[in-house]
């Protein structure tokens, strides 16, 4: 046998990078969050304890951002991507091949497009003079100034458009693994479509549902570019989710300390979700 430590040497470059560029910033994040660092005149940085956090919880802007982040996550990730992804995967098992291929290609194309391109496309789609209103007009339905009147809904739908492919792929794989005999047995027993879905399909793919919900939620929590390019968090603050609020405070208002405290809270929520995810999934490594 060779000298043991040498065998682990290949791990060094990756570990070094992770420590320097990921663990380092996270540590620095914890430090700055407890200071009053500002972009301008940073010489006077001093330790302020929990002030930034107290300030955040008393700040209507922060509470607004938390609420909008919850709405954005629930509407776009849990209700939107997750449900639509499952529905698409289930429908694709029954549909004819050309339709299946066409739909799959379009949904995946929306996912592979760079974030900023997707943002521009959906900006054009949701604008007052954009395609959505043209379609609604054509159907004789009332039109809306989406980006102004319902900005958080518009960006949520945009995120559904962009992210559903991931859920669709996960659920397609999960549904393909359900043994045919089980579904057929239930059919013979006369179970209706909905009952089969509730009592057989959903319990059998519950792990995939857990994985998908967690990953979607984590992904959605950190969406920035899509919202920034579509609405800049506006009008006013009506689509200002936590990442946008954090950016706004740290760079546009120059309050690095405060912005970082918000970032730290976001990081903690993400970390909590990750731990729950790893626990739930009983990862084998």
């Amino acid at each position, binding site marked *: 046998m060779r000298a043991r430590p040498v065998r682990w040497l*290949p791990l060094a470059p990756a570990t070094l990078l992770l420590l320097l560029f990921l663990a380092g910033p996270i540590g620095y*994040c914890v430090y700055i969050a407890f200071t009053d660092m500002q972009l301008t005149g940073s010489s006077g940085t001093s330790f302020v304890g929990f002030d930034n956090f107290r300030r955040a919880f008393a700040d209507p802007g922060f509470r607004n951002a938390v609420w909008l982040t919850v709405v954005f996550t629930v509407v776009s990730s849990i209700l939107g991507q997750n449900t639509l992804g499952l529905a698409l995967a289930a429908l694709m098992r029954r549909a004819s091949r050309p339709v299946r291929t066409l739909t799959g290609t*379009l949904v995946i194309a929306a996912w592979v497009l760079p974030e900023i391109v997707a943002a521009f496309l959906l900006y*054009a789609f949701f604008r007052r003079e954009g395609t959505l209103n043209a379609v609604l007009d054509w159907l004789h339905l009332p039109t809306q100034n989406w980006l102004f009147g319902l900005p958080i809904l518009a960006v949520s739908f945009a995120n559904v458009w962009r992210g559903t492919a991931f859920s669709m792929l996960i659920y397609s794989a999960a549904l393909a693994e359900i043994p045919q005999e089980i579904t057929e047995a239930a059919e013979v027993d006369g179970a209706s479509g909905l009952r089969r879905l509730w009592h057989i399909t959903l319990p059998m793919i519950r792990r995939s549902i857990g994985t998908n919900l967690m990953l979607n939620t984590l992904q959605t929590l*950190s969406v920035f570019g899509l919202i920034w390019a579509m609405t800049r968090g506006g009008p006013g603050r009506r689509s200002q989710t936590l990442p946008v609020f*954090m950016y706004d405070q740290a760079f546009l208002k120059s309050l690095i300390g405060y912005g970082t405290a918000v970032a730290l809270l976001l990081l903690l929520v993400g970390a909590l979700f990750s731990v729950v995810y790893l626990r739930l999934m009983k990862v084998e*490594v």
Partner: protein
Amino acid sequence: MLGRVGRRTRERLAADAALLAVAAAFALPLLWLLLSSLDTEADLRVRVPGNPGLDNFSAVWTDEITFTPMLNSLVLCGGATALTVVCAVLAAYPLSRYRSRLTRPYLLTVLFTTCLPITAVMVPVYGLFVQVDLIDTVYGTALFLATAQLPFAIWLMKNFMDGVPRVLEEAAWTDGASMPQTLWRVVLPLMGPGVTVVTIYTFIMLWGNFFVPFMLLLSPDRLPASVSIFTFFGNYGSVVYGELAAFSILYSTPVLLLYVVIAQRLGGGFALGGAVKG
């Protein structure tokens, strides 16, 4: 039997109709992109160009709009991808082959990091980059991008490497090959498809990344396409939508093509799918 077939057909038609409705909703924004790129008078609605042509493409086909940003993207994302893949291959080898008390905690940490919202770290990263003078440097940005993709790349690579049988390696060991030789000559050739998937996937992710270069690069001549498209078209009062669409297509084509290369191998639950047993 006949009734059964009839129901199957009805079910298929209903599923087809539902899918086509969803497909239409997904297609409209993409249709706008295609049609507007060919229309010099494009506005925000989907409409067939009155006088279709490639004028928009020739308008953006300049150093300032297309070539410099695309080249910047290539250098930034290519460099970061290379770094990620090399580090991931090296790290995956001991993690896949040797047993130690630390293997499991290390992998769990990697997986945990994969899930963290990187967006949240960007404010402190900016602060740190200002302090150590890495701000507005391409290599600094590439280092950070590479690190951000590294956890997932290690995880994927380790799973691919687990699939390579050890028998051949043991033969190489007996012949006196060193560890780097074994990795290079025996293991890597056997997991070529895996390395390709990780490389392309990493590159696609980096090519589309907007927030990191948006924060860490300042000089206009260093911006990659993901940011230049935003500063160029997003900040000007009157946007020429046709040109925006044309440039969007130029910018998106590389990743769309690359995705087609790996689509077959990605399959279903590939994302962390390997992590979930049972």
